[in-house]
């Protein structure tokens, strides 16, 4: 991470802001995003609701018992995804290689942009603020987690800069509460356990021996310990993409067979979209606007293999329509990941070894689409005859 200048952009209460739409006054009241169909857990909450001890993921019954005046806002996951994609695109348009962490939270390395914007970090921060065009908290630090922490500590109109190296990052993090770890999705459950053991600040966590933290909390504990000590992994920017999507606004709300017919038309239009460029679809998001203020519904579907055949895409997508809880006013299909051009054509001739290697490569790509970069790893022997088991092999990303 030497030399990195990470900027974190935090759009506060992004999902709730999108769900509230024009009713901005809701953000000043105790309000929360209503549970999704089939769930009892509320979504993002307003600051006024937090004052009652209500937080995201709390069961609805408990939230209402803490604050009977709590307003429930129907979620708009599709709208939030769409707006977030637009915001990420805006950051990429200023030249930033962006790593999205969750909705409303993203980081990028400003090192390569300094000269582009005149040499000063303030100019890059200003460019990011202008590109996002909505209230944003910006934190600048040498590591990703310190930048996220800085963004949570600053105000909307100002940015907080943590100058220096990883040691400076650790010193900045030390007095901050361990609950900050919740901002990184994989570590969401950890702060509660740490607090039960009396570990209140990141400095308390950093001061513990790594082996003791590893024993008690496993690999996630070790990740948190490294973060608290100012160490972090390098950013993993996403590949910038041009969104390929199709939308169908229906003359009247429909469900059942009519909806399946509409989805079929949408798939055909998407396959004919010139932006697709003949590429197969690896994953797609199906989203719907529901009747009369029912919010939106969306579902990401990762296919078992990259598909270029509209019929097979229908077979994979249409069963998902039955999960939509209300009649639909508008339906949208967005490609989130592409596979190779013209899909994977199985041939009857050719070198079996080469074909097998191609299929293996394709399978690994698909697994990574579902499970992330670490979804496919290989055991690499480094000293297989060593008498010490920990020296014999390592796990590395699968490549061929």
């Amino acid at each position, binding site marked *: 991470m030497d030399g990195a200048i990470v900027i974190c952009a935090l759009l506060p209460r992004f999902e709730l802001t999108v769900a509230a739409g024009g009713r901005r006054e809701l953000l000043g009241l105790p309000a929360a995003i209503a549970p999704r169909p089939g769930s009892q857990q509320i979504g993002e909450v307003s600051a006024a609701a937090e004052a009652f001890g209500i937080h995201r993921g709390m069961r609805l019954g408990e939230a209402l018992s803490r604050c009977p005046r709590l307003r429930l806002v129907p979620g708009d996951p599709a709208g939030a995804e769409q707006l977030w994609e637009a915001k990420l695109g805006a950051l990429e348009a200023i030249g930033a290689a962006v790593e999205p962490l969750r909705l409303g939270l993203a980081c990028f390395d400003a090192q390569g942009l300094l000269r582009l914007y005149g040499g000063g970090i303030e100019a890059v921060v200003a460019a990011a603020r202008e590109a996002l065009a909505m209230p944003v908290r910006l934190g600048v630090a040498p590591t990703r987690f310190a930048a996220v922490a800085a963004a949570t500590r600053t105000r909307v109109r100002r940015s907080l800069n943590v100058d220096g190296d990883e040691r400076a990052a650790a010193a900045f993090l030390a007095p901050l509460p361990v609950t900050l770890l919740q901002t990184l999705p994989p570590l969401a459950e950890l702060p509660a356990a740490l607090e039960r053991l009396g570990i209140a600040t990141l400095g308390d966590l950093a001061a513990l021996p790594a082996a003791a933290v590893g024993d008690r909390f496993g690999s996630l504990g070790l990740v948190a310990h490294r973060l608290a000590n100012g160490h972090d992994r390098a950013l993993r920017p996403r590949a910038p993409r041009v969104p390929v999507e199709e939308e169908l606004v229906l003359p009247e709300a429909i469900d059942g067979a009519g909806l399946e017919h509409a989805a079929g038309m949408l798939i055909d239009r998407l396959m004919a979209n010139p932006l697709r460029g003949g590429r197969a679809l690896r994953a797609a998001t199906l989203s719907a606007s529901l009747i009369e203020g029912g919010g939106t519904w969306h579902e990401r579907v990762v296919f078992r293999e990259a598909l270029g055949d509209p019929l097979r895409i229908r077979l994979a997508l249409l069963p998902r329509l039955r999960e939509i809880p209300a009649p639909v006013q508008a339906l949208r299909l967005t490609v989130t990941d592409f596979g190779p051009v013209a899909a994977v054509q199985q041939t009857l001739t050719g070198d079996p070894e080469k074909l097998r290697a191609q299929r293996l490569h394709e399978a690994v790509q698909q697994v990574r689409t579902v499970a992330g970069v670490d979804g496919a790893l290989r*055991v690499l022997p480094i000293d297989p005859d060593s008498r010490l088991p920990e020296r014999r092999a390592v796990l590395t990303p699968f490549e061929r």
Partner: protein
Amino acid sequence: MSGTRRLAVPRRVSVQVADSGQPLLVDGHPVDAIRESWLIEDRWWTPRPLRRRYWEVVTLDGRDEVVFHDLRSGRWWRQR
């Protein structure tokens, strides 16, 4: 979470031993049988030599565990 990571990294374990040094309890689980024991001495030519007494044991609830006693630090570790 990222990059390369080692396999079979030792993890701390709590072990109660008999006077003879053989494990009686591993993480609170009584040891039913000792399958094997061996000594590893390595890197004795460096400032940080390794001396480990390994024990492969079977606990009463049927687990097969490999633990070792670090003869320099006195700590016990589990390794697989």
